[in-house]
C-alpha cells in the first residue's frame, strides 16, 4: 500500500455523493408524503403467517392506500431480541405505524413504549403484548379453548377418552387455549385426557404425533386440536381407525371433511373455529383510519370475533371470495392446510383469494370504511395487560351451550 490518499479521496467523494442523494430523496419525500408503515413478522413459513402478511400487503396496494402508504415488510425470526432490534430500526427510520405479529407478549414492551413516545402507532394482530400504549387486535380473548372443548364434550355426551393436540410449548396463546379447554374438561369426570402432545400448529407434525398417540390409545373417542387439526384426521384414516369427533381450527381440509357425507358416515363430527389471519387486515385498516384522521381511538385491546363453523354451517365458495355466506374453498383450489378465515365480508370486503395467497390487491376494489364500533377485549393478565385482574367469568361460554350436564 503506497498511500492512503486515493482511498481518502474516494471516501470523501462517496460521502458527498451520498449526502446529495439523501438531500434529493428528502426533498422528494417532503413533496409526496407517504405514510411509512412497517409490517413486522416474527417468522414466516407457515400458511397462517403468510396469509396474514399477504392480506396486509394486498390492502396496502388497494386504492387509495397504493398512493399514500409505503409498506415495508421485515421478518425477524423467532428470537425476541431480533424483533426488538427490528422495531428499533423502524422507529429510527421514522415509522408512522408498525403492524406486527409479536413473538412475545412481554419482551417487546420496552421498545414499544419508546416508539409510542416518538409518536409511532403499534398494532399487534393475533398475538398480543401487555404494553398498554399498543393496540392489540386479537381473537385470543374470544374463548377458543373453552368453546371448542364444550362442543367436543357435547358431541361425546360428556364421557370418553380424548387427545389434546396442542401448539408450541411455552407459547402464551397455546396456554390460554389449553387452560380454557381444561376448565371445561375438568368439570366432566367422564372425560379422560389420555394423551397430550405438542403439534406446533403444523399439519404434518399433528399427523405424526397423533399416529404415535393412537398406537398407545386406539380406543380414543375424540380429539381436541389446535391448528394442524387436519393431520389428526389423516392419522385416524392412516391407522384404519374409525373417525371420531374432532374440534380444530380453520383449515380448509377440516371444513371440507366435516361437510363430507362419507367422513360423517365414518363418525366425523366437530367444529372449525380458531385464529383468523383476517385479524391482520382489520388491524391494518384500523391503524390507517387513525393515521388518516378518520377515527379517534385511544390504545386499547380489541376483540376479533371467534369464527365458528360446525358441520351444518360449512358452505363451499364458488368464486374467489367469501360471498353468500360461504366459508371454505373446493378441494384442489387451495391446499388442505390453507387457513380459510382470510376474509371477512363485513370488515374486509376488499380481499380475494389472490390477496391471501400472493398479496395482490383485488382489481377494482377500493378501501371501504370499517364499522364505527370496535369490540373491547376483556383483561387477560400476561396476555393483553400486566398487573390487571381478569374478569370473574374469564372462561364463560360465549358460542356454544352445554348439552350434557357434568
Amino acid at each position: 500500500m503506497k498511500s492512503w490518499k486515493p482511498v481518502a479521496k474516494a471516501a470523501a467523494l462517496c460521502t458527498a455523493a451520498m449526502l446529495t442523494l439523501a438531500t434529493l430523496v428528502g426533498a422528494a419525500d417532503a413533496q409526496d408524503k407517504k405514510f411509512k408503515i412497517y409490517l413486522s413478522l416474527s417468522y414466516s413459513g407457515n400458511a397462517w403467517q403468510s396469509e396474514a402478511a399477504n392480506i396486509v400487503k394486498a390492502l396496502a396496494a388497494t386504492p387509495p392506500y397504493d398512493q399514500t402508504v409505503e409498506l415495508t415488510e421485515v421478518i425477524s425470526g423467532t428470537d425476541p431480541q431480533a424483533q426488538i432490534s427490528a422495531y428499533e430500526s423502524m422507529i429510527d427510520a421514522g415509522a408512522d405505524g408498525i403492524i406486527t405479529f409479536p413473538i412475545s407478549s412481554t419482551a417487546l414492551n420496552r421498545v414499544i413504549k419508546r416508539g409510542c413516545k416518538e409518536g409511532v402507532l403499534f398494532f399487534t394482530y393475533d398475538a398480543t403484548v401487555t404494553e398498554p400504549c399498543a393496540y392489540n387486535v386479537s381473537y385470543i380473548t374470544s374463548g377458543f379453548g373453552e368453546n371448542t372443548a364444550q362442543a367436543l364434550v357435547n358431541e361425546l355426551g360428556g364421557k370418553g377418552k380424548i387427545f389434546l393436540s396442542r401448539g408450541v410449548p411455552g407459547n402464551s396463546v397455546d396456554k390460554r387455549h389449553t387452560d380454557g379447554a381444561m376448565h371445561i374438561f375438568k368439570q366432566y369426570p367422564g372425560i379422560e385426557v389420555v394423551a397430550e402432545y405438542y403439534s406446533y400448529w403444523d399439519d404434518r407434525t399433528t399427523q405424526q404425533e397423533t399416529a404415535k398417540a393412537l398406537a398407545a390409545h386406539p380406543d380414543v373417542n375424540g380429539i381436541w386440536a389446535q391448528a394442524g387439526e387436519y393431520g389428526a384426521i389423516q392419522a385416524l384414516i392412516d391407522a384404519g381407525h374409525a373417525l371420531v369427533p374432532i374440534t380444530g381450527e380453520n383449515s380448509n381440509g377440516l371444513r371440507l371433511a366435516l361437510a363430507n357425507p362419507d367422513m360423517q358416515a365414518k363418525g366425523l363430527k366437530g367444529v372449525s373455529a380458531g385464529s383468523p389471519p383476517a385479524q391482520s387486515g382489520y388491524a391494518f385498516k384500523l391503524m390507517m383510519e387513525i393515521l388518516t384522521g378518520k377515527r379517534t381511538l385511544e390504545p386499547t385491546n380489541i376483540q376479533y370475533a371467534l369464527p365458528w363453523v360446525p358441520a351444518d354451517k360449512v358452505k363451499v365458495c364458488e368464486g374467489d371470495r367469501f360471498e353468500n355466506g360461504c366459508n371454505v374453498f373446493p378441494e384442489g383450489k387451495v391446499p388442505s392446510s390453507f387457513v380459510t378465515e382470510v376474509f371477512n365480508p363485513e370488515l374486509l370486503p376488499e380481499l380475494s383469494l389472490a390477496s391471501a395467497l400472493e398479496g395482490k390487491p383485488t382489481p377494482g376494489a377500493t378501501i371501504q370504511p370499517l364499522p364505527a364500533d370496535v369490540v373491547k377485549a376483556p383483561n387477560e393478565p400476561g396476555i393483553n395487560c400486566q398487573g390487571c385482574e381478569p374478569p370473574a367469568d374469564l372462561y364463560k361460554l360465549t358460542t356454544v351451550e352445554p348439552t350434557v350436564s357434568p
Partner: protein
Amino acid sequence: MSAQGNGAVRFDGAADNRRSGGVSKETINAIVVFALSIVLILGSRFVSPALGSWSQVLTVLTLASFLIVVSFGQGLVVMIGGLDLSIPAVITLGGVLTAGWVGAGNAGAWYLLPAILALCGLVGAFNGFGVTVLRIPPFIMTMATSIILASAALGYTSGTPRGASPEALTVLMKTSWLGVPAVVFFVVLFVLAGWALQSRTVFGRRLYAVGANPDAARVAGVSVGAASTLAYVASAVCAGFVGMMLVGYANGATLRMGDSYMLPSIAAVVIGGSSILGGSGSFVGTVGGAILLTTLGTVIAAIGLEQGWRTVIEGGIIVAALFFLREELFARLRRPGRS
C-alpha cells in the same frame, strides 16, 4: 466390511485389531441397537396395554421410513468426515416442488419426479463443490445452502405451498399389501440397496477410505473430491425423496416439513455405530438407530408426563445409548491418557 477400521484408529495409529472372530464391532453394534428396539417395543406394554402390538410395529416402521432414508444420505456424508445440515431444506424443496409441479391431478407428469430428484442432486453437488473445491467447512457450507434454499422456497411459494400428493406417492404411503403398509416393503428394498451400495461396491469402499484417511486414499488413487461430492449428492437425493414421501404421507407440502429431521438424522447415524469423525459405520446400524429413535418417540408419547419431562427422558436415553454404544469409548477406556 471395510478394511479401514474405525475413526479411533486415526488417533492411536494402531492397526485394525479390534475385530474378533470375524464379527465386526459394527455388526455387534447394529445387533444391539435392533435388540434394544425390540425390547423397548415389548416393554412398552407396561406403559400402555395397547402398545407392544403388531400395529405399533407397523406405525413405528412407517414413521421411521422417513428417517431411514435421510439417514442413509447423512450416513454417507458422515462417513467421509462431513456433515449435511441442508437436509431439512432439501426435504422441503423436494416436497414443495412435488406438490406444486406434479400435484394430484397431473398423473402424466410423473417424469417430473426424477427431474426433481436431479435438481436436489444438483444442490448436493453444490455442497460438494463448496466443501471439496472451495474448502469451506462442511457444516458452514451446508448451512449456507440450507438458508439459501429455505429462502428460495419461501419466495417461490409466497409462504403457502400449493398442490397435493401425486397418485403414485399416495399409493406408496397409504396402501397396504397383506396388511403391511407398502412403504415398509419399500424400506426393506431401500435398506438392501443402501447396504449393498455402502458395503459391497467400490464406491462405498472409497467413501470408507476417504473418511478414514483422505491422504492415504489419494495416494491409493481414489479421487477424494469426486467421492466426497457424490456423497453429498446422494444425501441430497435421499432428502429430496423423503420430501416426496412426506407429501404422499401428509397429502401436501409445508415449508417446515423437513425441520424435524436434521438432528435425528445425525443421531441415527451415530447411535447406529458410525464415528462422527468419519471412516466407519454400517447402514444396517443406522437403520437400527432410526428405528430405535422412532420407537422411543412412540413409547414416550404414551407416557402421561409433561412435555418437558418427556423431552428430558428422550434426551437422557439417547445420551445413555451413545455412551454405551460408542466405539471410541471402548477405545479410550482401553488406552487411558490418549485422546
